[in-house]
C-alpha cells in the first residue's frame, strides 16, 4: 500500500512510518507568525523557557495592522520587536519596505519548499502547499508551545485527491476553480483532511495560481492543501530561497484516499461566493447586475502581481465606477507593479492603492465597509461583518470579475471583457 | 443669563488636538466627545468639570485645526464659558456657531478655583475671589446675533440665512 503526501511527510519528519489517525509530534522547518506574535511572546514567557527552540526557524511579518492604525496596534508591534531583538530572530519583516502578508512572504522568499513542514499561527498557512510543503495553521498559544519545544502534535489526517484537467478559459481564474470546489465540498467538506491537487490542469498553472487554490482550502476545513511540486516551484526557489536543500515529496500512486474528485477546467465558468458563507457558490450569471459599492483586489488570496496585472489589463484606459481598493500582498509585488506599469494603469483607472498587507480583508482598516454596502472582494472570507459592518455584504470573486464589476458598478461577467 | 462658577485654569496655546484628539472627532455621539475632552492635556478634566464649569486659558486658546468637535466636546462635557486673552480664529467662530460662550479678557490674574461672575453679553467679568473687575472684548454684531439665537443653525432657522 502506498502513502499519501501527508503520510509520507509526517513519516519522513518522524523517521518512522505513521498511518491515518495516529497522533504524533512533528518538527517544523519554519514557523510563521504575524501580529499575533505579540500574544505568542506573552504565552511563551508564561511557559518559562528562556530561549526559543531555534531563532532561525521562526519567521515573523507584520501584515494585519500595517502601518499601525491605532496606539494599541502600534504598541503591540513593540512587544514583538523587542522579543525579536532579544531572541535573535533574524527572519523578521517589519514595516520597512520589504514585508507583506505572511503567507506571501513564506512562498516569495523561499521559506516554504517541497518536503518542508511549515507551521503558522494563521489559518491560511495552508497557502504554502503551493510550494509543495506540508503547511498547517494553528492557534497562537499552540505556536508558543512550538517556539518553546520545537514540537507540534498532529493527527495524521485522511486525504482527498483532486485531479484537475483542462485549461482555464479567458476570464476564468484559479479563484473561480477553488470557489467552485468549496461550493461542491461545502464549508466542512474537507474538515481535518489533507487535500492534494494534481493533474495537467494544475501543472499548467503558475505558482501564484496554485497559491490562490491552496490558500482557500481551509475554507472547506482542510488541515493542509498541496499542489504537486514541479519545475516551476524549483525555478522560483533557485531565484530566492532560505534554509537548506529541499526534496520533492509527493504521494505514491497506490495511496489510499477518503475521496477522489475530478475537475475539468475547460468546463469552468466564473463564479462568486455569495454572502455570508464561502461555500455559497453561484455562477456569475446568477448574480450579474447586483449593485456594488466597493471593490477590493488584493490579500493573500489574490494580491500577487499576476492578479494585479489581470485587473490592470481589464482596467487600462477605462475608469472605475465604484471605489476600488488595491492592496498588494507584498512590497516586492508593489515594486514589480511599479516597474512594469501595472500600478500606473490601476491608478489611472481610478483605483486606490493601500500599503501592502492584509488591508481591508480583516476589517481592521484601509477600506472597512459601512451599513448596507456591497463589496466584491478577491479575499477568502465573506462572513457577516468580516470587512466591517454586520449589515454589509461580501461577494468573493476573481480579480477579473472584481475589475470588470468595478467598471460597470454592478457585478458583471468578466468574460465580456475578453470578447468586447 | 448669568454665569457663576469656579475656574479650571490652563495655560497658553491650548490646541484642538488636546481639546479633542483626531481619533475621536468622527462621531455624532456627544457622550464620546465629552468623555475624551482634554484627555491628552489633563486626565482629571472630567472630574474637575463636575466642580467647576468655567475654563480660563492664556493666549491663543483653541489653536490648530478647524475641528468643530473641539468646542462641541467642551460644551458637551459641561463647560459653561471659556475666558482667554485671545482665541484662535477658527475656534472662536466655531464656539459661537455652536452656542458655547467664549469671552476675551485679560486672564493673567485669574487662578484655578477662583469664582467668576459674568452676565452674558456684558462688558465686564467679576472675579469674586479677588474682587477684580475685568473688561471684556465685545463680540462683533454678527457674532452677537448668532450667539443670541443659540448658534448658527438656530440663526439660520430664525432669520432664514444671511
Amino acid at each position, binding site marked *: 500500500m502506498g502513502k499519501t503526501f501527508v503520510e509520507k511527510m509526517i513519516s519522513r519528519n518522524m523517521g518512522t512510518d505513521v498511518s491515518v489517525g495516529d497522533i504524533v509530534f512533528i518538527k517544523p522547518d519554519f514557523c510563521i507568525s504575524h501580529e499575533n506574535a505579540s500574544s505568542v511572546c506573552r504565552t511563551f514567557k508564561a511557559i518559562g523557557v528562556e530561549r526559543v527552540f531555534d531563532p532561525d526557524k521562526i519567521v515573523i511579518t507584520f501584515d494585519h495592522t500595517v*502601518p*499601525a*492604525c*491605532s*496606539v494599541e*496596534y*502600534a504598541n503591540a508591534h*513593540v512587544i514583538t520587536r523587542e522579543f525579536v531583538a532579544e531572541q535573535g530572530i533574524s527572519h523578521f519583516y517589519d514595516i520597512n*519596505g*520589504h514585508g507583506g502578508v505572511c503567507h506571501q512572504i513564506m512562498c516569495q522568499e523561499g521559506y516554504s519548499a517541497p518536503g518542508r513542514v511549515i507551521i503558522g499561527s494563521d489559518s491560511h498557512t495552508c497557502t504554502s502547499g503551493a510550494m509543495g510543503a506540508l503547511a498547517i495553521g494553528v492557534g497562537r498559544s499552540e505556536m508558543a508551545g512550538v517556539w518553546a519545544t520545537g514540537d507540534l502534535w498532529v493527527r495524521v489526517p485522511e486525504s482527498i485527491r483532486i485531479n484537475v484537467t483542462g485549461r482555464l478559459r479567458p476570464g476564468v481564474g484559479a479563484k473561480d476553480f477553488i470557489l467552485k470546489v468549496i461550493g461542491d465540498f461545502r464549508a466542512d467538506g474537507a474538515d481535518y483532511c489533507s487535500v492534494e491537487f494534481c493533474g495537467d490542469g494544475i501543472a499548467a498553472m503558475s505558482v501564484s495560481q496554485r497559491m490562490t487554490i491552496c490558500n482557500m482550502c481551509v475554507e472547506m476545513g482542510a488541515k493542509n492543501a498541496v499542489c504537486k511540486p514541479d519545475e516551476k516551484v524549483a525555478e522560483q526557489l533557485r531565484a530566492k530561497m532560505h534554509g537548506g536543500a529541499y526534496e520533492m515529496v509527493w504521494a505514491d500512486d497506490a495511496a489510499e484516499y477518503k475521496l477522489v474528485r475530478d475537475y475539468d477546467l475547460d468546463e469552468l465558468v466564473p463564479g462568486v461566493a455569495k454572502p455570508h458563507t464561502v461555500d455559497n457558490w453561484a455562477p456569475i450569471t446568477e448574480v450579474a447586475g447586483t449593485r456594488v459599492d466597493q471593490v477590493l483586489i488584493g490579500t493573500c488570496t489574490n494580491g500577487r502581481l499576476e492578479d494585479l496585472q489581470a485587473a490592470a489589463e481589464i482596467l487600462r484606459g477605462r475608469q472605475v465606477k465604484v*471605489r476600488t*481598493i488595491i492592496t498588494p500582498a507584498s512590497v516586492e509585488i508593489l*515594486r514589480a507593479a*511599479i516597474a512594469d506599469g501595472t500600478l*500606473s494603469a490601476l*491608478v489611472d483607472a*481610478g*483605483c*486606490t*492603492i*493601500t*500599503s*501592502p498587507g492584509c488591508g481591508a480583508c480583516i*476589517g481592521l*482598516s*484601509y*477600506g*472597512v*465597509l*459601512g451599513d448596507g*454596502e456591497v463589496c466584491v472582494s478577491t479575499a477568502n472570507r465573506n462572513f457577516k461583518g468580516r470587512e*466591517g*459592518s454586520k449589515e454589509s455584504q461580501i461577494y468573493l470573486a476573481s480579480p477579473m470579475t472584481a475589475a470588470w464589476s468595478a467598471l460597470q458598478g454592478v457585478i458583471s461577467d468578466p468574460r465580456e471583457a475578453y470578447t468586447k | 443669563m448669568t454665569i457663576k462658577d469656579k475656574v479650571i485654569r490652563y495655560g497658553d*496655546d491650548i490646541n484642538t*488636538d*488636546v481639546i479633542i*484628539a*483626531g481619533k475621536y472627532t*468622527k*462621531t455624532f455621539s456627544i457622550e464620546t466627545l465629552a468623555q475624551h475632552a482634554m*484627555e491628552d*492635556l489633563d486626565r482629571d478634566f472630567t472630574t474637575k468639570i463636575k466642580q467647576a464649569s468655567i475654563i480660563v486659558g492664556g493666549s*491663543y486658546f483653541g489653536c*490648530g*485645526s*478647524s*475641528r*468643530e468637535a473641539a468646542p462641541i466636546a467642551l460644551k458637551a462635557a459641561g463647560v459653561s464659558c471659556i475666558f482667554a486673552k485671545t482665541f*484662535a480664529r*477658527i475656534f472662536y467662530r*466655531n464656539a459661537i*456657531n455652536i452656542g458655547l460662550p467664549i469671552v476675551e479678557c485679560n486672564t493673567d490674574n485669574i487662578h484655578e478655583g477662583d469664582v467668576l461672575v459674568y452676565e452674558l453679553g456684558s462688558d465686564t467679568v467679576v472675579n469674586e475671589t479677588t474682587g477684580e473687575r475685568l473688561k471684556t472684548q465685545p463680540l462683533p*454684531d*454678527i457674532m452677537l446675533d448668532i450667539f443670541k439665537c443659540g448658534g*448658527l*443653525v438656530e*440663526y*439660520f*432657522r430664525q432669520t432664514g440665512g*444671511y
Partner: protein
Amino acid sequence: MSGLTLSEKILSAHSGREVRAGEITFCDVDFMMVPDSTGLYAVRSFSQLGKDKVCDPAKILFVFDHCSPAPNENLANVQQYQRRFANEQGITIAEGGEGVCHQITVERGHASVGKLVVGADSHTCTYGAVGAFATGIGATDMAACMASGKNWFKVPETIRINLHGKLPKGASAKDIILTVMGRLGADGANYRAVEFYGEYFETCTLADRMTIMNMVVEMGAKNGFTCFSGLGIQADPDAEYCEVHDFDLETFVPCVAKPHTVDNWAPISEVAGTPVQFAFLGSCTNGRYEDLKSAADILRGKHIAKGVRFLVAPASKDVLLKAVETGVLRDLVEAGAALFTCGCGVCVGTHGGVPCDGETAISTSNRNFKGRMGNPNAQIFLASAATVAASALNGCITDPAAYM
C-alpha cells in the same frame, strides 16, 4: 486713503464695495471644500438649517482624505452619510485615495487667483500660493455657507514679511516657514493675513509656495499670499500693513520644530543625532512630487537605517503617477520606504502609521501637537522632506546639506 492689501482687494471684489481691515463684510464665496474629517458635522448642521438644496453644487467639493479608505465601521458609516448627501445634492466627491483635499483643490483649478475659497479645514490657507483668498472655517460655518453661498468675514489686517537674499544649500521652503514661525510665534499672526515678498518667490516652485502658505495657519493667520510678479494680482504699493518683518534668507539653515508646539524652533545643529524610529514624508505641507524627489535624491541607491519605519504618502494620485513615471517612487521603495495611500494618512493619526509609546517621529507635516499622530506618548519633530529623508537614512536627525 492708503492703498489696499491683497486681502482687502479680494474681499472688496466679493462684497460689492470697498472694505478695509477691521470691517465685517458679507461675501459671495467662489468655492467650498469639505473634507471627510469635518464633513459629517457640516452635513448634519446643513440638514438642521431648514434648506433643501445647497446654493450651487458645482461650487462644492467633498474630499475623503483624512480617514480613507475607512479604518473602521464608524468611519465607513460616516463617509457613507456624507456620500449620500453629496450624491443627493449633485456634489462631486473625491474618493479615498485621490489625494489630500488641498492638493486636489489646487490641481483641479478650484482655487485660483482672485478667488474667495473657504474650506472646512484649517490648512485651506494653502491656496494663497495661487493668489486666492482662502481660509479655514468650521463645519457649521460651512453648512451655512453651502446653504447661502455666502459667509461673513472680518477683513484681516495684514503682516508683510520680506525675505531677502538667497536660501543656502540644504534649506528649503519648509525651513523658511518653520523659521519665520519660530520668530513670530504660534499666535504671531492670529486673525491676520500674511503677505510674503522677496526675490525667492520669483524662482521657487508652486510646491514651495504651497508649503509656506500651508503653515501660515500655524502662526494663527487667517490667510496668506506668496507675492511675486507672475501671481496675477498685486497689493497696492501704498497698502497699509500692521507689521512688517524682514528676514535674511542667507542666514537660514535646515531646522526643525521640536515637540510639542510648531513654533518650538531649533536649528538642525541643536537636535542632530536625536534617534528617530519613525519618519513620515507626505501631507498637504510636503507631499508633492518635488518633496518626494528631494527625498529620493538623498536616498537613491541607499537604504534607510535598521529600526526606522519610513512611510510615504503622496499628496495626490497625480503626484503618485508622476513619481512612478520618473522612477522616484521606485527609488523610495527600494530604499525601504513603505507606500501609504494618497491622502492625509499618517499626519492626523486616524487611520495608519500611529507611532508607539515613547517613539520619536520626524515628519514633513504641519503639526507636532501632543497626540497629533494618534499617540500622546510619542514625540514629533517637524522638518523638510530632505531632512526627513536624511534622518531616515541615518536613524537620527540629520542635516541634509551633506547629502545634497
